[in-house]
């Protein structure tokens, strides 16, 4: 048990210990670093937004409707969670690249080319992050006490009103937790981004890519950026594990219920 804790704590402690604290401000304000941080923030928020817009309805369908092949559909939706990121990138390339299954038509008909663009980053991040949101929200929907919704319906509320005034507020904490997890996953995405969107400073070079590139020339900057990402990860865990959310069974109960279902 102690060995397991040390195993996890040691690398993180090493990162903190080896941070160039005196230099931190200077390293984090260079043009390259600011560009990477800004791009990461914008893309990860866009990916989280897209995950919510697409993921909540998807979670609803998986939790509340019966249809043949639902188990298969669920497995497919959750696949990016276990797929090696770089494999996800290759798959995206084969689907949406210039010669891709869909990409070739996007190029021929609309002149749309995704690789090398910021949208490719958003797409890659959404691909890997959305399953986290779907599984969290789906679990919450499953473990919801339906009687609240039924009571609202018997009191005359229509389906959309029930959804808006009863269901969504009840799964609110899970939605926040799922969004936080999706955001963190999107922020940290590397393999799919570098394979599908490639490495273009200012356009597709997100923070993890910048760390990878800087490690070869400016170790201090790479470590400083790593510290920023570590701080973000800690923040997300604090949010997800917070008493408010766990009290509502947001992640653990929901995810457990979802997986058990």
């Amino acid at each position, binding site marked *: 048990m102690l060995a397991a804790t040390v195993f996890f704590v040691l690398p993180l402690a090493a990162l903190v210990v080896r941070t160039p604290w005196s230099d931190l401000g200077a390293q984090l304000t260079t043009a390259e670093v600011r560009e990477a941080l800004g791009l990461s923030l914008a893309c990860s928020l866009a990916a989280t937004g897209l995950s919510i817009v697409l993921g909540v309805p998807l979670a609803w369908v998986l939790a509340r409707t019966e249809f043949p092949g639902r188990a298969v559909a669920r497995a497919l939706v959750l696949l990016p969670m276990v797929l090696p990121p770089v494999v996800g990138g290759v798959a995206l390339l084969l689907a949406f690249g210039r*010669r891709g299954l869909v990409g070739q038509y996007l190029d021929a008909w609309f002149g749309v080319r995704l*690789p*090398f663009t910021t949208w490719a980053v958003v797409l890659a991040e959404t691909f890997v992050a959305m399953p986290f949101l779907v599984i969290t929200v789906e679990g919450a929907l499953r473990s919801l006490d339906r009687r609240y919704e039924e009571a609202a319906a018997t009191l005359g509320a229509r389906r959309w009103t029930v959804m808006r005034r009863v269901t969504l507020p009840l799964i609110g904490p899970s939605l926040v937790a799922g969004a936080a997890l999706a955001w963190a996953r999107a922020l940290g995405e590397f393999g799919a981004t*570098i394979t599908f969107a490639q*490495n273009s400073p200012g356009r597709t070079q997100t923070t993890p890519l910048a760390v990878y590139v800087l*490690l*070869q020339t400016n170790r201090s900057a790479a470590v400083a950026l790593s510290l920023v990402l570590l701080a973000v990860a800690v923040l997300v865990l604090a949010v997800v594990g917070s008493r408010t959310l766990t009290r509502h069974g947001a992640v653990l109960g929901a995810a457990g219920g979802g997986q058990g279902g």
Partner: protein
Amino acid sequence: MTRRGIALALAILVAAACTRGEGSETITVLAAASLTEVFAALATEFEASHPGTTVELGFGASSDLATQIEEGAPADVFASADEETMQRVVDADGADDPVVFARNQLAIAVERGNPLGIESLADVADPGVIVVLCAEQVPCGKLADQALVNADVSLTPASRAASVKAALATVELGEADAAIVYATDVESSDDVEGVEIPDDVNVVSLLPVATLRETNDRTGARAFVDFVTSPAGQRVLERFGFLAP
């Protein structure tokens, strides 16, 4: 499975993992990405003439490998795509006495059939052309930037790839129209065509190889380095399109 069965299986696995053949040695060689095909051939020939020896190859961007060596990666030999990166390792007391074993030049890799009719670096700078260069800290990236300066061409690449093979891959996959890579990479790939860069503008890089200070097998490492610089090794390099040192 019984507990004893599991223990036995584990013991066999560990023994198999730890044991090498009697009298066999392994030489670990870290080489620049552009040396992927030629060093695989060199390793095969070396193993043939040195029975019992296995050459393990690790490829990557030279700057990437140099960082690994500086961090103490266990290897015996390092072959870099340029002298600057080798000097980094020498300065960090990682390597001794590098020796130049080949030279390489840049070329433009384009799709088979050259549909866009690219003939020069100036053509590549056209806004309609998607071109990929190596990252600035990778030798081929530095050289490409230098060649563009020589040709008085300025362009904005769509991406700066992590290694020369990654840059080449973007053209092989059809995502990029052109990539500035080494002439040897164009030769090794069946999926691309090469556009020559004129000599007065092109940049020639010198490739050094050296034994590493951290090596556990100085004689083996030395033997491999000597093989690379020997006439036999030089013939292999020539076959793959490398220029004589």
